[in-house]
């Protein structure tokens, strides 16, 4: 021991200029000084500019009367509402279109992604063409295409296309019957909730029983019967309280029913179709990422092709799929800000209007950025939870 200590001499460090630690501290000090100086200069300029333009900074303008109308409003809003209300309407519109887009894009994406791996040559080629077309054109162009190229040249309300279930399609959008919930219809919702809860319970018990005894139970059909049957039963018991307000054609317009404007339709369709192409590629990569040995081993255990897919391939593929899928969901949400180009009143469009009316550029842009950041963080958090549940439990 002692001899080793004698050997361990302090190495010569040379000049302290060559010490990486000293250099690091010096370099960081320079960065901090530059950053502080830059921020100070910017803040100074901003204050000076705002004074020159006579704009009061701060968020008090949110309580002022907005004075503009919003055509699509999921909550009560008039032009007498405040700027703050307007921004909330925009936020809700963003969330609606993003959620609808995410659901549709996921469905199309999974279908096309699996189709690209089909043994059927024709299906494979069709799916490839779909992916290669939509991946390589800007989403804004797809939005314009639906808006100006397809929906704007539909017939006027007088000559609307009649679609099944009493719905109509024309230049002003898509009209469908609106459900009117009569008295006692709360029973239906309660029945639906009870059905879902019971289905969940049945699934759990069935799995426990299968683990214990190996006996299987037809979970799928029982759950379907519970989830669909119970509300139907409640509907009958409550005396058929549901009626529909059908859109009716008059000379120049359609009255009644529920209308979805062309702005929403084109944004929703474009975002779904565009993002689906990326999701398809992710799904394909995920399925290809499950090694062939897994399928073969499952086959050797005697599982049927359907069970192999459901029990062996898909759970492993999901593990590969979920992280990039999350970023596609985030992309879709961020791309929904393209709504401003066709006049769908989403968060960006309304914040832009507010910004133009009030001149509160800094606050307006800050609101937009912070809200999108929060949406991104929440989506990532939710998907991280899903991912954690799906992830391989390592030894």
């Amino acid at each position, binding site marked *: 021991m002692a001899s080793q200590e004698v050997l361990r001499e302090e190495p010569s460090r040379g000049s302290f200029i060559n010490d990486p630690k000293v250099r690091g501290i010096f370099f960081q000090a320079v960065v901090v000084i530059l950053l502080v100086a830059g921020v100070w200069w910017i803040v100074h*300029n901003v204050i000076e*500019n705002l004074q020159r333009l006579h704009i009061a900074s701060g968020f008090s303008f949110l309580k002022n009367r907005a004075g503009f109308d919003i055509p699509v409003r999921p909550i009560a809003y008039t032009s007498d509402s405040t700027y703050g209300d307007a921004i909330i309407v925009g936020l809700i519109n963003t969330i609606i279109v993003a959620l609808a887009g995410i659901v549709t894009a996921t469905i199309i994406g999974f279908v096309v992604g699996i189709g690209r791996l089909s*043994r*059927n040559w024709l*299906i494979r080629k069709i799916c490839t063409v779909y992916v290669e077309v939509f991946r390589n054109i800007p989403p804004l162009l797809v939005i314009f295409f639906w808006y100006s190229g397809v929906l704007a040249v539909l017939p006027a309300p007088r000559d609307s296309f009649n679609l099944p279930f009493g719905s109509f399609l024309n230049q002003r959008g898509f009209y469908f019957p609106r459900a009117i919930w009569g008295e006692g219809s709360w029973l239906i919702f309660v029945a639906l909730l009870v059905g879902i809860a019971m289905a969940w319970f049945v699934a759990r018990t069935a799995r426990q029983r299968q683990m214990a005894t190996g006996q299987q139970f037809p979970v799928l059909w029982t759950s379907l019967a519970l989830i669909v049957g119970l509300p139907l039963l409640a509907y009958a018991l409550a005396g058929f309280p549901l009626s529909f307000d059908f859109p009716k054609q008059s000379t120049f317009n359609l009255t009644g029913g529920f209308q979805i404007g062309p702005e929403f339709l084109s944004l929703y369709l474009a975002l779904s179709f565009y993002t689906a192409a990326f999701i398809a590629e992710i799904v394909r990569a995920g399925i290809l990422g499950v090694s062939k040995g897994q399928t073969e081993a499952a086959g050797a255990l005697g599982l049927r092709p359907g069970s192999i897919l459901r029990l062996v391939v898909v759970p492993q593929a999901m593990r590969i799929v979920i992280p990039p899928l999350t970023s596609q969901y985030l992309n879709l949400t961020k791309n929904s*800000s*393209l709504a401003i*180009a066709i006049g769908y009143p989403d968060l960006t469009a309304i914040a832009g209007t507010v*910004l133009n009316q009030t001149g509160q550029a800094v606050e*307006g842009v800050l609101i937009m950025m912070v809200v999108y950041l929060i949406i991104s963080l929440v989506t990532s958090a939710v998907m991280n939870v899903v991912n954690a549940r799906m992830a391989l439990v390592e030894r």
Partner: protein
Amino acid sequence: MQEHDTSWVRTEMALAQQPPAGVRGPLAWVRKNLVGSVGDVILTVLAIALVVMIVPPIINWAFINAQWVGPDRTVCATAGQGGIQPDGWSGACWAFVNAKFGQLMLGRYPIEERWRPILVAILFVALLVPLLIPRVPRKGLNAILLFLVLPIIAFVLLVGGMFGLPHVETQLWGGLLVTLSLSFVGIAVSLPMGIVLALGRRSKMPIVKTLCVIFIEFVRGIPLITVLFFASVMLPLFLPAGVSFDKYLRALIGVSLFAAAYMAEVIRGGLQAIPKGQYEGADSLGLGYWQKMTLIVLPQALKLVIPGIVNTFIGMFKDTSLVIIISMFDLLGVVKQNFADANWATPQTARSGLIFAAFVFWLFCFGMSRYSMYTERRLDTGHKR
């Protein structure tokens, strides 16, 4: 012994027999790929129905019924709409694209000065093509010419105001010129910036690392439109009174910052994939930080993430279309602007213009992705696991 030996050794291999008739030829191919099972047959029938439903009308619309030349909207409108086509006619109005072609390419760039962007485009192609073909020598010189000399020449030629060339406001630029110049400069700026940010994020200096993480995560969390808003309404406030800069430049800053954040994440992936031994090997050779990075780590890391880098480029190329929102007119912007032209207002105009723009965008993006696949194969040195 010898004469009694009846053993026989084949001196040449027997010729391989053809596979049985059932597994070769077009019929077997059809059996395997189209009608393998009952489900397959149903799928094939559905797919054929889909193709028959979609493809002939498209061909009809885009080629057979299309109008290629014409002076104004009459060639693309039916009699009921005040045109010359029979009622019920539906076809592409390529005449519109044809008539507006100059605008779609160069925007409102003055007609007598249009030789300047065209010359830049020729120079660009002349320098780009040899750089893309691996066999052509002098890559270093070529790259310097393309990425250092050409931008200067292009700036002088496009902006003018010196050497006797009249000044052309960037307000007048438009069409493909804006799309391509924005994305070229954006690519040239965002790649080095992304490398610096990625190195910063993996740096051991806590302040530098934190700043890089904040920048990257912040920019990746917000849509490009808000960045463009930021660049167009907030940047002017950041500067001293009286100093203002061009809208084009502002868009350029916005797009480059945005792409740099995504680029940084792609490159970080590459840096992480390089085994630790490479870093340590470089250290043990006595290389400094920058020598280690530029000579050992980055060449390997960048090669690994070529697909990601090209994907970011493609994304950025597509994203340049968003500048329409801060009222600049790229290819898509010019197309959209021309919908308002009463001379050409027909139901077919919007569709035709948009499909033309989509085709141009598609051509560039598809080309880029295919070239990246080719490069990936070429540079593959067999280290793939």
